């Protein structure tokens, strides 16, 4: 497997992981290695059924691998007993295509959820929830219920909920696939900012090449349970070798020629001011920073929904 990552410094490392669902003819994930650098935004792209979600869910052990090693930060997750695994999962945020908010909890209660189950004090929970809601620009909706929000707002709440416990890693399973193009852009902006500002490592599953182009530092192309190619979008452009990667890069709204300059594409399609042109940057300088501190002054998304 081609990867440029050194043995140390990987935020996520999968070694030889496999997953075969009972009753299925072939494995959902064939033996796979994947190393994600700390501070990286890494995409997993491929067609429906390629095994992308399964691979992502192996990272926080929502799916148990049949074989192989799952390491996140300093933890070897696949070797942890249940209690330690739950503690480790608190350091890994996750967002979903269908948002998966609790319908009967208010926005603020949803964001408080991971802090409550971790047993934080009510005072610190209250402060942290306010901080995170402010960051995603939804302070005004704290008392609303998810059913009263738009899709984009629901995903912001889910992001605030994922960020609340200060995760080092964020897993995202098709986070914009249920959203319209404009809302998609604003959610991608938030994800880029989380990465840039707080150094959160992001592993993102998508079937849309445009999402990869706008957000990712690197991408793994997945087909029939295997990573067939890895492409680095920062170091200029290495021509896709696999047929699938060539097809992916040629389709969509951008031509392969444009894709050779990901920074330009990102800048051209991003919303002004709030969007960091992360595709042009290497891994953010503050990749080591872990504490996500948001003050009203640096909350970039407040205006979006108030406007």
């Amino acid at each position, binding site marked *: 497997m081609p990867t440029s990552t050194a043995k140390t410094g990987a935020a996520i490392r999968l070694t030889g992981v496999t997953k075969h669902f009972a009753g299925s003819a072939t494995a959902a994930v064939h033996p796979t290695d994947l190393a994600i650098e700390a501070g990286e935004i890494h995409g997993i792209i491929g067609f429906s059924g390629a095994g992308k979600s399964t691979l992502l869910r192996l990272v*926080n052990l*929502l799916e148990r691998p049949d074989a192989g090693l799952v390491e996140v930060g300093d933890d070897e997750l696949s070797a942890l007993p249940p209690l330690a695994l*739950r*503690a*480790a*999962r*608190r350091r*890994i945020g*996750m967002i*979903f295509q*269908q948002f*998966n*908010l*609790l*319908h*009967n*909890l*208010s926005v603020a209660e949803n964001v408080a*959820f*991971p802090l*409550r*189950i*971790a047993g934080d004090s009510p005072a610190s929970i209250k402060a942290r929830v306010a901080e995170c809601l402010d960051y995603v620009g939804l302070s005004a909706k704290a008392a609303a*219920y998810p*059913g009263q929000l738009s899709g984009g707002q629901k995903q912001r709440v889910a992001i605030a*909920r994922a960020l609340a*416990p200060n995760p080092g890693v964020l*897993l995202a399973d098709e986070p914009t696939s249920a959203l319209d193009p404009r809302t998609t852009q604003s959610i991608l902006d938030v994800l880029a900012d989380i990465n840039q500002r707080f150094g959160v490592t992001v592993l993102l599953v998508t079937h849309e090449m445009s999402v990869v182009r706008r957000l990712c530092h690197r991408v793994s192309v997945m087909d029939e349970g295997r990573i067939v190619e890895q492409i680095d979008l920062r170091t200029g452009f290495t021509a896709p070798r696999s047929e699938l990667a060539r097809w992916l890069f040629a389709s969509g709204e951008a031509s392969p020629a444009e894709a050779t300059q990901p920074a330009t594409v990102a800048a051209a399609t991003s919303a002004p001011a709030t969007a960091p042109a992360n595709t042009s940057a290497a891994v953010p300088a503050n990749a080591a920073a872990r504490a996500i501190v948001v003050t009203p002054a640096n909350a970039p998304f407040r205006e979006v929904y108030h406007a």
Partner: protein
Amino acid sequence: MLENLLELTPDIITAIGETFFMLGICLTTAVTLGGALGIAVYLTAPGNPLARYRRFNLTADAIINVVRSFPFIILLVALSPFTRYIVGTSIGPLAASVPLSCAAIPYFARLVEQTLRDVPRGVIEAAEAMGASPWQIVWRVLLVDGRSGLILSTTVLAVSFLSYSAIAGVVGGGGIGDLAIRYGYYRFQTDIMAAMVVLLVVLVQLIQTTGQYLARRADKR
């Protein structure tokens, strides 16, 4: 008719009291024990957080089916030695509460299990991904996002067992159904029987309306 009813007012009040007594005991045991059993069966079903306890799931599932397949009147008779062992007699509202509870526990367990299946899988997975324990998933996810369905399940339970309590009454349990049979059937006072039926209809309406109101209020969707 009115004379008859007035004459029997003390009996009617006693009968209502007995019905509520039987229903109270049977609903309490069903909601606590049956509810816990239903949650346990749900959690241990394939694909759910405690799916590794497959043996428990199969056993509990089979027991629920067996008890539920007994016609209630037969369960009533079959359990009478057990009833006598527990409360010392097989006659009266307290004795009738034993078979009522035994039928209500698996009945409610099944309702709870099916209601919880409506809680979206993704929400439970999100909680697991955040590091929630199975216990926390029960209290903070299932009982929160499933609560309006659970209220409706409890309503169905209460309505069903109001009518079961009338059957239990026949075997010396007392209550509204017993009164209706004693006067309406054995003494041919059809007016009393009709009045008791009306009373039961009103009670069912009351339970149903209250349940639906509470369920609607609990649902923030």
